[in-house]
């Protein structure tokens, strides 16, 4: 047990606090840089807006189909999913090139690159800096015991299995700051700040999603809807309600 490990106060003054402060400052800087680089809000394409609205409307139809008479439902179904000019019908050739078109759009590629650059460059730089100056020593101790599994998370850069897990290495402190400062940023930069790394990574992975896919998914969903008019049941329910009211 390494319970009597004493940390130098100089570590606190010269590693722990500077590291946190630098992380916060870099986050703020990155926010402003990305704000500068963001291209002036481009207008959404009417076609994409329309597709989104079609999906909402078709979803409504699917959810509440039983509330309208069968005739109206059939008319709508044909309107949405006929093979000629239905709203949800995507011609075959068009489906594939949507993604290619997205990438060929120089503006969009540029935008993505800018976002990536503003995220990756400062991260690599700070990581190199932390690695160079502060690698390989214990910087802090958390006040509660943890199991061995947390060793890789908290003692990154120290290859000693005898040190108690509650000690945090400086590199791990950097990682903790990198991912844990989101709450602080949303406090100082406002709610919708652009420094949210985790969310941006999610966005990146879902970037190439293409709207025609959701259209055809919605069409498939609509195709299998069985229309069963709910209104005749309501007569009995209304009768019951009235009986309760009258009595």
């Amino acid at each position: 047990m390494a319970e009597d490990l004493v940390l130098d106060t100089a570590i606190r003054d010269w590693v722990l606090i500077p590291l946190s402060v630098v992380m916060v400052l870099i986050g703020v800087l990155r926010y402003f840089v990305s704000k500068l680089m963001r291209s002036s809000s481009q207008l959404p394409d009417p076609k994409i807006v329309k597709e989104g609205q079609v999906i909402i409307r078709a979803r409504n139809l699917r959810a509440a189909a039983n509330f309208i008479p069968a005739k109206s439902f059939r008319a709508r179904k044909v309107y949405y999913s006929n093979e000629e000019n239905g709203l949800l019908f995507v011609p075959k050739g068009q489906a594939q090139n949507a993604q290619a078109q997205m990438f060929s759009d120089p503006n969009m590629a540029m935008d993505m690159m800018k976002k990536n650059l503003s995220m990756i460059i400062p991260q690599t730089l700070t990581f190199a800096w932390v690695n160079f100056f502060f690698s390989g020593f214990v910087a802090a101790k958390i006040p509660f015991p943890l199991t061995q599994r947390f060793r890789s998370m908290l003692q990154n850069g120290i290859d000693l299995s005898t040190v108690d897990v509650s000690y945090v290495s400086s590199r791990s402190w950097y990682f903790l700051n990198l991912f844990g400062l989101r709450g602080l940023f949303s406090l100082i930069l406002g709610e919708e700040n652009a420094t949210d790394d985790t969310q941006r990574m999610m966005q990146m992975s879902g970037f190439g999603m293409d709207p025609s896919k959701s259209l055809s998914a919605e069409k498939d969903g609509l195709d299998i809807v069985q229309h069963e008019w709910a209104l005749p049941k309501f007569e009995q329910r209304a009768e019951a309600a009235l009986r309760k009211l009258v009595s």
Partner: protein
Amino acid sequence: MVSKTEEEQVNRLESQVENGGGGAWEYLCLVRKLKLRRSDKVLKFGLSILNDPKKRSALGPEEWTLYEEVAVAAMDCQCPDVAKEFTKVLQKKFPGSKRVGRLEAMLLEAKGSWAEAEKAYMSLLEDNPLDQIVHKRRAAMAKAQGNIPLAIESLNKYLEIFMADQDAWRELAEIYVSLQMYKQAAFCYEELILSQPTIPLFHLSYADVLYTLGGLENLQTAKKYYASTIDLTGGKNTRALFGICLCTAAIGQLTKGRNKEDKENSQLQSLSAVALEKDYKQRNQSKHSLLTATLKSLKLS
């Protein structure tokens, strides 16, 4: 959507503020939240807050929302001068804002200078061709000028893109009803029912339209929708109760002589008649005799 409790709350707050009990800001917030159109009260109470520097500064950034709300109310109360002053204040605070631009265009509308308003809206649309509110305002402006075909046309064009916008569907339905184009109106109400199936008022309007269209099938459908309104409101909607009685009477008239499966459904009608009588006895004794006469004539026919 305004529920019963909220309606009562608004009315209580209104009379409280009217009698000098305070709570003007809460009232204004509630009116904004429920999207009510009580322009005269909003103008009066809003002015009393805005003219009091202490109360005004207590609002913080909400102050500007209040300015906008009161400006629109002033336009609605035919006080364009007052509205102009508010708009000026907002213009000073937010130069170049599109929202203030819309407000200015609305001011032109309120003054009746349609051409200028149209020009202002067009320039707003140039900046952002997908500005929903501006599109809606243009349709409303056409309606205000009495150019209903144009209003319908622009609404249709708008719904071509923003087809999930309920408010526009509702406006279109109301316009169609006013033109007695009931088939089209029925389509719009179906759309509204689809988007919010639990709101009884859409069921009720749809039933009204179907009843007006007439014909046996439509009447039967209308009766079903009146029934669903009764179910969703627990039988507290008088119009739906009357609707059931009228539908049953009309269906009876059409199927005179060949009444076969009609017997089972008559329960609903008699129940709603009883419910109506009970309601009238409770709330309006003096009109009770009128009701009995009406019901009797319906049953006889």
